[in-house]
């Protein structure tokens, strides 16, 4: 029995020896950071960045910032913040960019209406100046062209097409101004010609009166016969 115990002890010892020899001794772990447990990372807000950038360019191209300075300032601030945090804290970046998009849209909505209203007012003032000079008669074709563009701009404005409406308002305004200038030149020339003709008429009447008086002084008549 002892033999069995002894043998068992030997085998056990051998087992332990063998097993201990195949396992490297446990070393203390270096201080290099070990990867954490995998967490879901926020995607870069590329779409928001592109949209905000596009809206900013549109607002600046039309100069709408001056018509809604509060929303414009807030939009620029949020857009800058979104760009700054882009790639670092994409969630925060996305949030800022979404705010900027909303604010730029507000600028376009409010400022666009004011911008177009101002352009329309300018165009209508130019049109009135042309109408006062009767440019629709004096410079018929050019006036019709300017007026057609103006009506097109009104339709574009009603459709919310700020870019085309503003372009057409501006162009028709400039066209009306050009038409007015030409009409004024034509009117000045006509007035001058008419005044000269009226002066000629007065001079002709005076010449006839002088001739009539000279005939009378000489004792002659101008009734078709002599004395």
């Amino acid at each position, binding site marked *: 029995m002892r033999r069995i115990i002894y043998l068992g002890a030997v085998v056990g010892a051998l087992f332990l020896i063998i097993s201990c020899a195949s396992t490297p001794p446990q070393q203390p772990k270096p201080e290099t950071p070990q990867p954490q447990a995998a967490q879901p990372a926020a995607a870069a807000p590329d779409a928001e960045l592109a949209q905000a950038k596009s809206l900013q360019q549109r607002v600046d191209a039309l100069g709408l910032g001056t018509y809604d300075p509060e929303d414009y300032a807030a939009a620029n601030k949020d857009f800058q913040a979104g760009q700054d945090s882009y790639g670092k804290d994409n969630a925060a970046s996305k949030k800022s960019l979404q705010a900027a998009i909303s604010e730029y849209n507000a600028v376009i909505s409010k400022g666009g209406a004011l911008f177009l209203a101002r352009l329309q007012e300018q165009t209508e003032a130019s049109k009135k100046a042309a109408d006062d000079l009767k440019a629709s008669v004096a410079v018929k074709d050019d006036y019709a062209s300017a007026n057609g563009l103006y009506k097109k701009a009104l339709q574009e404005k009603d459709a919310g097409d700020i870019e085309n409406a503003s372009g057409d308002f501006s162009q028709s305004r400039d066209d009306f101004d050009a038409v007015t200038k030409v009409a004024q030149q034509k009117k000045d020339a006509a007035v001058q010609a*008419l005044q000269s003709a009226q002066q000629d008429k007065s001079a002709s009447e005076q010449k006839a009166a002088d001739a009539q008086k000279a005939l009378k002084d000489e004792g002659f008549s101008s009734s078709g016969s002599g*004395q």
Partner: protein
Amino acid sequence: MKTRILVLAGIALLLGAAVVPLAAQSLLDNEYYHKAQDLLSQSQQALDAGDYDNSASLAMQARDYLAKSDDYVVTMTQFYRANGYLSIAKDRVSYAKSIDADVHYKAAYDTAVSDVTGAKTALDGKDYPKSIDLSKSAIAALANIAPVAKKPPKEPTPQPAAQPDLPQYYTVRLLLPRRDCFWRIAEYPFVYNNPWKWRLLYDANKDLLEDPKNPNLIQPGMRFIIPGLAGETRDGDYDPQVEYPPLPAK
């Protein structure tokens, strides 16, 4: 008083303003002036309608027609003057013929007839300055003719009452308020009984005037010869005490 003067002055101004256009009416009554007026009216209407190019064009056309009207006035003034001188010259030739100037002043008469013929031809040819010169020449040629005393008839017919001859001379008088002038002298029944014949008097006496070109300035005391008009017999000076037979008005 002031109010009355102002009212009278206003009336005078209105009359003056009305007379000037009336005086020039006949010379301005020509197609060119009327056309110019029409064009000016159209030009104003075009200006009011904004048709500026057309307005300027019409005004320019009006100026062209006014220039033509001016030419017409000049031409017609010359015509009326030439016609008037020719009328006087014809009267003088008629008178000369009536007093047998073709016999007694043959050279002068022939010259006058030739000049009158030339004046008429020039007038018809619209050469008015030449016509005027020839008419004046005819008038001058006959300026000094006077009736030659005729031999008394062999058997004078008895006259119911002796009629004095018409005066050959008239001395300008100061007859206020009616002042003598060629017009009024010619109007006297014993002169021509027709004021429109004043120029005959003026032409015969212009050398007596201080300014021969100014028929409006004559002085009391001037003694004017009265050229015969239609064969009437004239002799001596006008005597206000004599009652002369009136010359038939013509």
